[in-house]
């Protein structure tokens, strides 16, 4: 009955490692997705040492071969080994996915913090964000790539720009609701500077949602890269990516559907795994669902 005599709850701290383990093993589906993702990342990382054939050497004598013992998934129109190209292609796709997520979250966080805290910046920035969101992301991306030329950097920029406004909106709304919290008002009353309040009380509130948003951006960036390549506005096929392998296979679809379908399967499974993992992280971190307190 008295709150004084209630013994303090035992100290509990969950280490980040065990937290990750907990999320990964939260359901069989998530576990499988994590394993698949690990395999995809590792094979992409070590692809140069794993590929059975040179993924870019042209061998006209073995054009469009069906799967065989030498060429596990067959060859493409230039006689290049499809399996090796898919392995190597994962590197571009994953780099684009991860880098787009990091850049979008980084810029979105900074702009969102300003928008959420400084009124006149908010007014200007949110009109720009609305404008950017009005432009369909694929159209914007292909316009940028076609104007600036298709390098990995322009593709990355083209994919990242349309994602930034979404992050800005997310961060802004998180900041706006967090600033109403009494503990933030208490910090104001304690004479804390705006920078300190942002760093201590506002930014930590955005981390969990940004991790979740980051995984979704990663998945969507891989998807967008594939679509850009497919439309002919992607990275040059001399650097294989999952998207441009499929793009090159389009015209031969009726002869050898594998050139489109195998990379299609791989890219789908990879994106699916990232999305499933993102959902699992969201379920674990969403404050409305998580009953436990959030530890650092």
């Amino acid at each position, binding site marked *: 009955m*008295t709150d004084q005599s209630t013994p303090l709850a035992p100290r509990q701290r969950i280490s980040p490692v065990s937290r990750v383990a907990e999320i990964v093993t939260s359901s069989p589906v998530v576990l499988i997705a994590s394993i698949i993702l690990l395999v995809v990342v590792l094979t992409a990382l070590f692809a140069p040492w794993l590929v059975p054939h040179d993924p870019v050497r042209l061998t006209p004598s073995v054009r469009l071969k069906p799967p065989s013992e030498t060429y596990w998934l067959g060859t493409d129109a230039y006689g290049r080994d499809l399996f090796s190209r898919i392995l190597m292609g994962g590197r571009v796709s994953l780099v684009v996915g991860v880098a787009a997520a990091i850049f979008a979250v980084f810029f979105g966080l900074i702009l969102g913090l300003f928008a959420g805290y400084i009124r006149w910046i908010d007014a200007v920035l949110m009109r720009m964000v609305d404008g950017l969101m009005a432009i369909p992301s694929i159209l914007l991306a292909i316009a940028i790539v076609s104007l600036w030329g298709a390098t990995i950097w322009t593709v990355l920029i083209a994919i990242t720009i349309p994602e930034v406004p979404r992050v800005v909106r997310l961060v802004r709304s998180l900041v706006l609701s967090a600033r109403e919290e009494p503990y933030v008002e208490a910090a104001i*009353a304690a004479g804390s500077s705006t920078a300190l309040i942002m760093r201590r009380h506002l930014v930590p509130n955005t981390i969990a949602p940004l991790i979740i948003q980051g995984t979704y951006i990663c998945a969507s960036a891989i998807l967008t890269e594939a679509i850009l390549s497919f439309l002919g506005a992607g990275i040059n096929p001399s650097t294989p990516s999952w998207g441009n392998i499929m793009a090159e296979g389009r015209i031969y679809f009726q002869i050898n559907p594998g050139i489109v379908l195998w990379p299609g399967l791989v890219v789908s499974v990879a994106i699916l795994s990232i999305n499933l993992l993102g959902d699992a992280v969201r379920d674990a971190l969403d404050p409305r669902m998580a009953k436990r*307190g959030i530890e650092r």
Partner: protein
Amino acid sequence: MSNGLLDIRNLRIALNGNKDQQVVKGLNLSIEPGQTMCLVGESGSGKSLSALATMGLLPPVLSPIAGSIKLKGEELLGASPARMRELRATSMSMIFQEPMTALNPVARVGQQIEEVLEFHTNLSQSARRKRVMEMMEGVHLPDVEKMYRSFPHQLSGGQRQRIMIAMALVMGPQLLIADEPTTALDVTTQAQILSLIRELREQQGTAVLFITHDMGVVSEIADDVTVLKLGEVMETQNVENLLRHPQTDYTRQLLQAVPSHVPRMARAEGSKEIVLSTDKLCKTYGGGGIFTRAREVKAAQDVSIKLMKGRTLGIVGESGSGKSTVARCIMRLIDPTSGSIMVGGSDIATLKQRELKPQRKKIQIVFQDPMRSLNPRIEVGQSIIEGPLNFGVPRAKAMARARELLELVGLPASAIDRFPHQFSGGQRQRIAIARALAMEPDVLVADEAVSALDVSVQAQVLELLAELQQRLGLGILFITHDLGVAAQICDEVIVMQYGRVVEYGPAAQVLGAPQEDYTKALISAAPGRDWDFANFRPFSEAPLAP
């Protein structure tokens, strides 16, 4: 065994059907036709869950694992969903705490009542409508034709609860379950709703299962009372007996913690030093929209106050009275529109943020919601030392001081590196007080600081504040809607209404012999004002005038 209207025997409700996670542990309860039974308990007592179990509306994670609930002899646990639907509204109905969220925001209130008739009767549409109108008149709603077509957001809190009551009673059920139906309402509205429930019970002979945490309300409405604690029945008694002769220690403590409405003895006047004063403080919101014609709201108008060192000044009022606006202006969490705020000799009303910082030290605040007043992500020690660090106190010294402060507010010093979720609501409020004290302020603003706490915890926090005031000579500005709490802690009281000061004077005078009609109305509406709960008797039987 009685053949009551409602018979609950050995009801056990558990989380996820797990025997070891019981939230209601063997509830026995019986209600006769036409009787009002109050189910009283603090948070976590399982009082609402027992009611929801009766209606068959428990959330899916909770389920009854043993016992029986009989309505007119019919077993409800295990009754088919179809049968339960038939019984709801026709034999038993329920109203809830928050009438705004309990009504569908996008449907007209009249139709929401009529819907009940649509599914439980064969009346024609015009007959249904006529019945709804009668019912709305029965709960004393004005202009029912217009009211019928209104949406919930267009009504006041009291009107919404009247709609809920009309909806619940339109089929004339024998049992009405009321789950804290007046807790979200202002005190004057609460008194009206309580009298409406009494009136309808007499007219229709409806039995009422009334759930509340408020002993004042109990004394106004109950025939019998069942006291619950952590899912267990403490005792069941006739209300008069319970208030006079509680059988268990728990009930006794609960009654003793209820703040009395008789102001405490006036303290000898102490220091004449003014630590906080305002002069004609005004705060106006809105106005000046180009297309939306935002209405100008005068949230605070010409508020002038004076607070001396070591004294407590209370601001009381109903919601929308502007009492919190005044507190937030004084803290400069919002900027006042005009007027001055003198803190320790300097006017802070118009200072820029940078000039304001040194002044912030002198005045600190404790908020209402213990769940949100501490940053959940940092250790409480870090929250406490944030202010001192801003003013250049070395970290080690600030931490040592934080340990002392935790002990001062009645917590172990070892609590310093725990996270807020590891504490109860009362403990968090203590930590919030420690955080405010770390700045060594002259003035402490307590904005409804005990309103979210259970009554026993509330009494302890009030005691702590009084003790700290004596030791440290704090001036306390105490904002509350609860006249009882104000009577117990304040030296002087301001009554506010619609942003204006209605009455201002010594507590004994304002609360004991009010001059203004509004103050009188407020005081006469306070439930249980005639009972001296702590001494287990009505004030009329007190040996001496207080």
